[in-house]
Each structure stands twice: as structure tokens, then as C-alpha cells.
């Protein structure tokens, strides 16, 4: 098998965007294995990684069914190059230190929780079922990561400084979560997708509540937001992630594992 470039009618594109974001973020969390600051967090990071990889598998399977070319979840995960990946840029940001990983998880979960809650009413029954499960999972991610944002923000001077540095690094990747393009507008009208812009107030309220408890100042409004992940324009990190993740199936393209 060689590299796949899918024709991406809106429903396939939509499912791929969700699948790629969950896989890339789940993969990032799995990179922590054996490195966590305490055994309990080793287990928690693995839990969250497993939830996201599980969501990705269901979403790829759905994308493959919508694509109708007889492809599998693994074809889509392992045989597309970075420019075909449609994940949010936030998901591909490197783990950095524990503050950066937990803040990235919180910024995403505070969005994903209301997102999947709304998607549970999707006119696409498969997506609705995936959403109902994902919503429960993201409630835990949100709780767990918010608790760490509070501990680190209102912990020691060092943890506070590290969390602020992480916020400075990650904030520009949060705007992309609320973007809508032409491809999704039609799906929103059909009740298949939801309008992420409508989730912004809920997300901002979560951020404000948790940051206040963490004694973390909210970033000034109007800061430039990076964008492009949904269209395959990524940063430099994703290529390395995929080079590692895809290495075996690409080296042995005829193999079944």
C-alpha cells in the first residue's frame, strides 16, 4: 500500500478531523509512559490516552465507511502523510513538561466536553453514539486536568511559572477549535455537525473559573490565533510524530499485525 490521499466530501472530512485530533492527542499522552511524575499520574495519563485512541478508532471506522472504498481504520491512521492529517494544531503540540501536557489537556477537554455533549444529538446516528461515550470520557479528562491546572497554578512559584509559560505557548492554538468552514456549514445545516462557535461561551466560562482558582491571569483578548490544522497545514512537530507512529506499517506494507 502507498500513501492515501482521500477525496474528502464534507462528511468524510468532518469525521477525519475528529479522528485525527483524538488520535494525535492520544498518541501524545501515550508518549508519557514511564515518565510521569508519580505512579497515579502514569495511570491517569494512560487512561486519557486510551479514551482518545478509542474515540479515534471509532471515528476512523466511521470515516472509512463514509468513504466507501473498503479502507480500514489503520489505512487511514497509518498511510496518510502530514498534509492529509486534519487534526487541531493544539493536539499535535509537544508534551513539554507536565504543566504543558495538563494545560493542553484542559484547554482541549473544556472544549471537547460541551462539543460531544452537543454532538450526541447529531443526525448521524453513528456520530451520536460515539459522542455519547466520548462525552462521559471527556468529563473525566476535564475534571482531572482542571484539578492539576489549579494545583500547579496555586502550588509553588516554580509550578506557577511553568504553567504560565505553558499557557503562553498553547494559547495561540485555541482559536482554531471554534472555526467553521464551508465544508462544515452544510453539515451543521443538516444537523450532522454542530456549530463549534456556539460552544465558545461555555469554554470561556470553564477557562475563567479554573484559571481564577489557579490564580492564573487570562490571556489578553485579541491575541493572534494560529490556524490551519483542519486544512492540513501543520507545524513542524506532526511530521515527527507520524514518522514514529507510522514506521512499521510503512516499512512492511504487506503485513497484517
Amino acid at each position: 500500500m502507498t500513501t492515501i490521499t482521500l477525496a474528502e466530501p464534507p462528511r468524510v472530512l468532518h469525521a477525519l478531523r475528529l479522528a485525527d485530533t483524538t488520535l494525535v492527542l492520544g498518541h501524545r499522552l501515550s508518549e508519557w509512559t514511564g515518565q510521569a511524575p508519580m505512579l497515579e499520574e502514569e495511570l491517569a495519563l494512560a487512561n486519557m490516552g486510551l479514551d482518545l485512541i478509542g474515540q479515534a478508532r471509532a471515528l476512523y471506522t466511521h470515516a472509512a465507511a463514509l468513504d466507501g472504498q473498503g479502507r480500514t481504520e489503520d489505512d487511514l491512521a497509518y498511510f496518510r502523510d502530514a498534509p492529509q492529517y486534519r487534526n487541531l494544531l493544539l493536539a499535535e503540540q509537544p508534551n513539554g513538561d507536565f504543566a504543558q501536557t495538563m494545560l493542553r489537556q484542559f484547554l482541549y477537554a473544556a472544549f471537547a466536553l460541551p462539543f460531544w455533549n452537543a454532538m450526541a444529538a447529531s443526525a448521524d446516528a453513528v456520530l451520536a453514539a460515539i459522542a455519547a461515550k466520548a462525552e462521559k470520557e471527556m468529563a473525566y479528562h476535564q475534571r482531572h486536568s482542571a484539578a492539576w491546572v489549579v494545583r500547579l497554578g496555586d502550588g509553588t512559584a516554580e509550578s506557577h511559572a511553568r504553567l504560565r509559560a505553558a499557557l503562553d505557548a498553547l494559547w495561540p492554538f485555541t482559536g482554531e477549535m471554534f472555526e467553521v468552514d464551508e465544508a462544515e456549514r452544510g453539515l451543521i445545516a443538516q444537523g450532522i455537525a454542530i456549530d463549534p462557535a456556539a460552544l465558545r461561551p461555555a469554554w470561556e466560562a470553564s477557562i475563567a473559573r479554573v484559571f481564577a482558582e489557579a490564580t492564573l491571569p487570562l490571556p489578553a483578548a485579541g491575541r493572534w490565533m494560529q490556524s490551519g490544522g483542519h486544512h492540513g497545514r501543520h507545524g513542524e512537530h506532526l511530521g515527527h510524530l507520524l514518522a514514529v507512529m507510522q514506521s512499521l506499517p510503512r516499512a512492511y506494507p504487506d503485513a497484517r499485525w
Partner: protein
Amino acid sequence: MYTQALNQRDAAPAATPEDAAALARFQARIDADERIEPNDWMPAAYRRTLVRQISQHAHSEIIGMQPEGNWITRAPSLRRKAALLAKVQDEGGHGLYLYAAAETLGVSREELSAQLLSGAAKYSSIFNYPTLSWADIGAIGWLVDGAAIMNQIPLCRCSYGPYARAMIRVCKEESFHQRQGYELMLALSRGTAEQKAMAQDALNRWWWPCLMMFGPPDSESQHSDQSMRWGIKRFSNDALRQKFVDATVPQGHFLGLSFPDPALRYDAEAGHWRFGAIDWAEFRRVLAGDGPCNRQRLETRRRAEAEGAWVREAALAHAAKRRARAATPPLAAE
């Protein structure tokens, strides 16, 4: 994973005069197959032996996360990736229960962890070997978890209650890991020529180190007699090793793989697979610190511990702030 019979002699002074009557009552309880619980009286040497064995077992689970963790980011399918991540997570969970079981004997997880990081504590020799291909993940599940089960099933009846109960849960998960590892090996051995070669190479490298997991031969390990009397150990190292070989060899043949032992043959009369001489010099060398990955494994653990220090400090500082705030509520505005 994984307890290993290292048969270390109990180093503490033997002659603290304990009440002979109490010792006799204790032994009678063990002989009656009763479980000893944390608040029960127990001889100091029994306590030390258990702390050493349970903590070595816990350390092995934790260090064992590294060789398998090495392939999580490169797992070749999403199903395998999830399964491996979940397996390594299980091993971390085993470490957690085992540290908790050790804590019931009056030693803290921090002390035990410090012993691991300083190099004072031992862990299973098997994890000082590298995982060089994806097939090693199958081989570890099939063979290393398989050997761990042989060692640990008898521990489900260990005289010390908390250890026995932890083992019941751990063994259930280890047998799931073993089946999953074997299924991975089956997929490789039924796959392409390259996959089959990968599986064979993994078996070649892991077979002998797995036989060493059962510890030194009985001829060199009379010290385990005391553990037997105390109901901590139920079968000898050689008996468990033979049981493992008998169960595993037919499984390997079913895969179409060969074992790296020209002396391996079936003794129909005894009903056992007879195997060649184990290189005990290698076993001693790896235990002494000169295995291929000993330094790397400890270095990785020390780095994770050091890099996590500020996180643990922050958690403690935050908890202290919360307690202080709860203790001095702001004056109520009338």
C-alpha cells in the same frame, strides 16, 4: 510483572530472642493454612522477607513498563496500540497494589522507591534486556507474563493475606496479557516471511532469560526452605521452571517456531520437556548490574523521578494552602 526467586539470605541478625511460644503459635497458624493479617503478630524475619519480596515484585512491575513502553508509539495498528498501552498501564497498577501491600508491613512507598533509585533494591533480571523489534512485545506477553503467572499463581495462597489478595487480581490480568502476547506472536508467525523471522528472533533472544526468571537451581538455593515453611513459597524454582517449559514448548511449536536449545527433547517416560544447561554466569552478571540495559533502566527511572519533583512539591504546597484556608475561614461580613 514479576516476582523472581532471588533467594537472598535474610541479612538481619537472626538471634533477637522472640517468644518461643509466639513463634510456635505463628507456625501453627501457617500450618493450618490461616492467613496472616497486618495487625497480627509475626516474626521480624517473616516481615523482612515479605517486604523484600513484595517490594522487588513492585519494582519489577515499574521497571517492566520501560521495555514495553518502548513500542507504544510504534505499535503497528490502532488495536495493538490500545492493547499495549492498556497492558503497560496494568503493570503500573500492579506496582501500585504491591506497594500498598508492602505498606501494610510498615514501610512506605517513598522508602521503597528510594531503595530502587539508589540501586539497593533488586528487580527481575528480565527487564534488563532490550526490546528490539515489535515481536518482542509478543514474546514478552507470551513468555515473560507466562513465566510470571507460573511464579505468581502459588502466591495467591501465600500466608500473608494482603499479598495473596493482590496476587489474585494481578494473576487475572497477567493471564490476559499472556494470551494477548501469544495471539500477537500467532499473527506474526502466520504473517509474511519478515514477520515470521521477527517472531523467531524474539523467541531466540527471550527464551533463556525467561528460564532465568525462576531463579537459581534448587541445588544452589536451600535458603528457600524457610520461605516454604512460612507459606510464602510453595514450589521450588526448578519445579516451576519445568512447569513453564512443559506448558510453553508445545505453544512455540504450534507457532511453527523453534527454541534456541539444541538439547530440548521430550522425555516421554517422565512426561517432561528436557532442556539444556542455563548460563548461570549470565544470570549473575545481569543481577549484578551488567545486563544490556541495567544502567539505562535505572537512569530512566531516576530522570522521571527528578523531573517530577516540582510537580509533587506543587501538589503538596497546594494541599497545604487549602488546609490553611479551610482552617482560617475569612471573617464573615455581617
